[in-house]
C-alpha cells in the first residue's frame, strides 16, 4: 500500500520536473513585456530582490517594480502599445501582463502603490472590457479607459 502510494505521487512530480525546462524557455521568449522610452532623474527597477537604474531602453518583465525619486519620471511602452508614465516619488508593480499579438487577447495587471501615473490604452483594452486591471492601496479599477490618470497620495 505504501509502495503504490509512493509510486503515484512520484508520477506528477516527475512530470513537473520534466516539463520545467520547456516552460522556462517559453517564459524566456516572452519575458520582456515593456520598454522604458522616457527616463528622467532617478528611476529604478526592483527585480528579484535587486535594484538597478532604468535608463531609456531598459526592458521590463512581469513582477518588476518601477520606482522614481524626487526628481524622477518615467514612461514605458508595453507590447500591446499601451503606455504607462509616472511622475516623481512613484512606485508601480507590474503584477501581470499577457498578450497575444494575433488576437489581442490577454490581461494587464498593475499595482500603483504611490505617486501619479497615466495609463494610455493599447490593444488589450480594445479586445475586452475587463482586460486592464489597476489596483491601489485602497481601490481596484477594471475597464477599458482610453486614458486613466491615478494619483495615490503618500501615507
Amino acid at each position, binding site marked *: 500500500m505504501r509502495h503504490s502510494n509512493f509510486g503515484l505521487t512520484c508520477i506528477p512530480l516527475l512530470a513537473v520536473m520534466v516539463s520545467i525546462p520547456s516552460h522556462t524557455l517559453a517564459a524566456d521568449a516572452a519575458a520582456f513585456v515593456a520598454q522604458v*522610452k522616457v527616463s528622467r532623474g532617478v528611476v529604478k527597477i526592483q527585480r528579484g530582490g535587486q535594484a538597478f537604474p532604468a535608463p531609456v531602453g531598459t526592458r521590463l518583465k512581469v513582477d518588476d517594480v518601477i520606482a522614481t525619486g524626487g526628481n524622477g519620471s518615467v514612461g514605458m511602452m508595453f507590447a500591446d502599445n499601451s503606455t504607462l508614465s509616472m511622475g516623481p516619488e512613484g512606485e508601480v508593480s507590474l503584477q501581470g501582463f499577457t498578450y497575444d499579438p494575433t488576437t489581442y487577447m490577454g490581461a494587464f495587471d498593475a499595482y500603483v502603490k504611490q505617486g501619479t501615473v497615466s495609463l494610455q*490604452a493599447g490593444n488589450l483594452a480594445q479586445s475586452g472590457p475587463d482586460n486592464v486591471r489597476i489596483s491601489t492601496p485602497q481601490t481596484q479599477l477594471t475597464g477599458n479607459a482610453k*486614458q486613466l490618470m491615478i494619483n495615490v497620495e503618500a501615507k
Partner: protein
Amino acid sequence: MKRQFSATSATRFPAYFVGLGLVASFLAGCAGPSEYFVLQPAKDGSTGSMRATSKEGKGFVLDAKNTNAQSRGGAIEAAKMDSDSVKKMFQSTLDAQPLPPSNYRLYFAEGGDQLTPDSQTQLDAILEEIKRRPAPDLVIVGHTDRVGSVEDNDKLALRRAGTIRQIFETRGVIAENIQTAGRGEREPLVPTADEVAEARNRRVEILVR
C-alpha cells in the same frame, strides 16, 4: 512668581498647538491619504470607462459623464476637480509619456515580397522616424490579398514581414528591436471575395514605437 508664570504660559502655547496637530493628524489618519482617478478623452472624444471599487466594496463608474473620482477611507465619490487642478496634479506624469507609435504601410507586387517602387521611396522617411526616437523598436506585420490558399498566404505574409525586417537590419536597426508577425489574408484593408487580387491588401504594417 511672575517669571514662573510667563515661563509656563510660554510652554503652554506650543503644547496647545501640538495637541491641535495631534487631533488633526488623528482625524486625517482615520480617512487615510486620498487617491484620485481621472479619465481623459482620446482624440476622437471617447473615454471608455473604468469601474472603481473600494476595499469596503463601494463602487463608482468613471465614464464620459463622471470623469474623476476620489477614494479615501473606503468611500469613493466624484472629486469635482477642474481641468486646471487636473493639469497641475498630473503635469510631470504627462510630460513623461512616450511618443505614440507611428504607423506606416508598405505595399508589394502581386504574389511576392518585392516592394512597389512607391513604397521603396518611403523607407527613408521611416528610418528618419526611427532615428528620432531614443529607444526605438519596430513591429512589422505582413498581410496578403485573397489570391491563393490561406496557408500559402500565411507564409507569404510572414515572408513579406521578414523581407522588411532584413531591410531595416541592413540599415542599422538592431535585430532584437524588431518583432515580425504574419496575418495572411485575415485582416484585409479592403474586404474582397476570395481569389480577388487587391493591391491595397498586399502590404506590411509597420509600427515605429
